[in-house]
């Protein structure tokens, strides 16, 4: 199995005393930006002000696709699964953190699932094989996901030491790569690291043109 190399580039930006905005950029070895990478921060100190947990998140089904492809949430988040298609979906997961099955709900119908365990939950639709999405349930207080440009800006980080966990759908099996004891301070600096990805990319295919219309 071949591995793609991902280069993680951390740029800590912004001179703030109390908090810092952290820009994270992930590129592969070819210099291409890597989207849908989840970056989570495990502070090695007690946060002075707890990060407000986002109580809810949404995994839409729209155009026979999940949206977003990767949804990072914190433990204890309830995710709703609204259906915007005019036909039914049957969303399921056999992933260990959360096994569930949302049977055949219709348009504009929304179901919610509460994720109490951390881990990666792979989502599929029993009706539409092409549909694929991941819910990354993180036990860390700060979670972010790179955009199409492979960048994410984490705002208002308390300076201090963090373990930074990186996850991506194409990660080879095994534990998530962790950048240990990264010190986030007010002065900007760059940290780099490397993780292995599978050669075959896990991506959600759009539905075949005439398949379901």
């Amino acid at each position, binding site marked *: *199995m071949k591995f793609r190399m991902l280069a993680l580039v951390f740029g800590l930006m912004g001179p703030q005393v109390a908090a810092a905005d952290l820009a994270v950029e992930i590129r592969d070895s070819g210099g291409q930006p890597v989207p849908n990478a989840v970056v989570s921060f495990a502070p090695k100190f007690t946060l002075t002000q707890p990060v407000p947990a986002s109580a809810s998140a949404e995994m839409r089904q729209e155009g026979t696709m999940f949206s977003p492809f990767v949804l990072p949430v914190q433990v204890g988040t309830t995710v709703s699964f609204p259906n915007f298609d005019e036909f039914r979906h049957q969303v399921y997961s*056999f992933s260990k953190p959360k096994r569930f099955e949302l049977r055949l709900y219709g348009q504009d119908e929304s179901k919610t699932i509460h994720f109490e365990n951390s881990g990666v939950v792979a989502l599929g639709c029993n009706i539409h094989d092409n549909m694929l999405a991941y819910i990354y349930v993180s036990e860390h207080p700060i979670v972010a996901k790179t955009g199409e440009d492979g960048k994410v800006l984490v705002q208002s980080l308390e300076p201090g030491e963090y373990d930074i966990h990186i996850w991506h759908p194409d990660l080879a099996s095994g534990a998530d790569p962790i950048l240990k004891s990264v010190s986030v301070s007010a002065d900007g600096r760059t940290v780099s690291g490397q993780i292995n990805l599978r050669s*075959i990319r896990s991506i959600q295919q759009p539905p075949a043109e005439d398949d379901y219309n």
Partner: protein
Amino acid sequence: MLAFRFRTKLTVVYLALFLAVMGIILLAFYRSVTTNVEDQTRDQLAASARVFERIVNYRVRTLGESVTALAQDYGFREALGTDDKPTVISALQNQARRLEADMAVITDIDGNPIAALLDGEATTAMPMISDDLKQMAERNGVASRMVSVDGRIFELVLTAVRAPVPIAWVAFGVELDKATAQDIKGLSPIELEIGFLYRAEGQQYQVASATSHADALSDFLKTSQPTDEAFRATFMNQEHMFRHLSLVSGDDGNEISALLYYSMDTALAPYDPLVITMVTVLVLSLLLLIAGSVVVARGVTKPLTNLASAARQIAEGRYEEVETESRGDEVADLTSSFNQMISAVKEREKQITFQAYHDPETGLRNRLMFDKMIQQEIDQSDSFVLVIAEVQQLPELRTVLNHQNINDLIKGVARRIEKVADTEVARVSTEAFGFLVRDAEDAETRASLVLNSFMTPFDVADIVIDASVKLGLVKFPGDGEDGATLLRHGQAALDKGRGAPRGVAWYDPDRDSSQKARLSMMSELRGGLKNGEVKFAYQPKLDLESGKITAVEALIRWISPSRGFVPPDDFIPMAERTGDIRHVTDWALRQAIMQAADWRARGLNLAVAVNLSTNDLMNQNLPAQILALLREHDLPAEFLKLEVTESAVMHDMARALDVLNMLSAMGLALSIDDYGTGYSSLSYIKKLPVGEIKIDKSFVLNLAKSDEDNILVRSTIELGHNLGLSVTAEGVEDEDSIGRLREYGCDVVQGYHIARPLPPAELEEFLKESEYGPA
């Protein structure tokens, strides 16, 4: 023989050509069939290989769809997702049964086995599922690969189970077993065989399964491993064509392949009836060809055989023209030429026969023809008479007539005899004719008529020629039983007839037998000349003028032990006729010269006179012979005298004159002996170089009694003297005769009154005592 050979040749040539052509055809046929079958087989094997690939692809696709279906089955995925192993295994079994898959395997996403089924039963034998196969499955949804497990080959189809991310690998396998092979075989138009082979890296191919004879194939592979894609080899004692189809040649070194093969014998089998038909056609054509060529050859050889038999007939003397059925071809030409040849040969033989049986000069029937006539007469008649007629005077006539005249005369004679005797005449010798008279009674009359007819002279080239004829008659049967005898006896009768008064004589057997006795006498004479039986007696010749004996005549005396005294008249004429006279002359000359030389040596000067015969006078070598003898014995020529008779000279006067002139020139004295019994013509004697004539004793013996003889002797002596010749009288037997002869002027006398012929010793004695002894 020739016909047979020719026929054989023709047949063999046809046969060889036919066989060559047939050989080329058969070879071309065999090559074409073999190449064709090989090509077909090769194509079929290739086609079957494609069919095989297609079948495998089809099975893979079907299996792939089923595997995909299973992998997407929600319940199955749920069971997997929830680690419900019993459910997973039972679902796997269920699906495997439904798909008739021989193998089913499921592993987790990392390749750790979850469950494996072989022939519906759980097993621990796991096929090797390589990472690249997994990648291929992930990329294409389904991936297939042949794998070998426990000596069996499976087509394995792999897919990932997604929930929705890959959570496990599931694979189904169908075995490439005998049934599979037979399925493929069933789709091939030819009865090919298929074997599935596998081998681990560095090892030999093993047989996984085969349509038939898997064990034999296994043994075969032990000795011949396939290396090429297509090859030929002997398998199960038959030539096979093989196609080796490599199915898997993995990175791990394991190889799986299919071996398709087909027996060439089987491939060629459909052509067997064709081959049998061709061989039958060949054999039949061969027989037809032989028969045909024999017929054709016979068409050519039959006329040839006819010609050959005609040629044999010609050899036997039968000239029959050859018939032929051919028209306008070579045989007809040949036959026509042959017939022309036959008529030409016939014509020529006629000429040759005519020439053989006729005298070329006169065209008369010849001696050969006469032999034939006699033989015919012997065969046809009970009795007949053979007549030999001899024309007289021919030697004399030759001196005055030319050749053509003689021939005309001969022809005239023959015509006259034919006319008179009313029969066919043949010329049996130069002077003699022969004819046959059927009526023996009539023979003498006819003979007389012939004799009389010669009274009339012949007119040849305006010359009137008198010719006479002498006849000899022989009777059949009696005087001879065959032609040769009759002719010989006819000659004998003619001999007798020559001396007969009427010139005709019948054959006399007694006379003939004495003739024979005389012939045997000649051989005795030759002996006698050598062994001393023959001697000379010498009769003195008295010279009347001198009263002395100056010469002697040597007279031959033969005392034969068996015959006693043989008179010279009995053997000298015979010796002249047989030619033996030559021996007598040789002996006589030598004896006489030796004797004369001997006497002269002893002071006795006597000339010796020797008698010469007609033959001697014809012998041109005689003078040289005498000269040699004289020199040998150193004797002067005057001591040898030679005496010749008139008739001897007259036989061929010209030649005799040559010899006599030569002898005279040598100084020899020549005498005419027996003067008065022959022509007695002084006119010709004067031409001869003789010095003496000897009056025959028949005139002298009765001189005392006969006046007539007295006149004759006296006139002869006078005539001789007138011609300058010495005259000797022989046969003087009394004193009275001597007196008369002396009176008549005779020069020399000889006779019993003086002395009988004496042997040399007695003669010498006589001369000593006699008053006539030489001075």
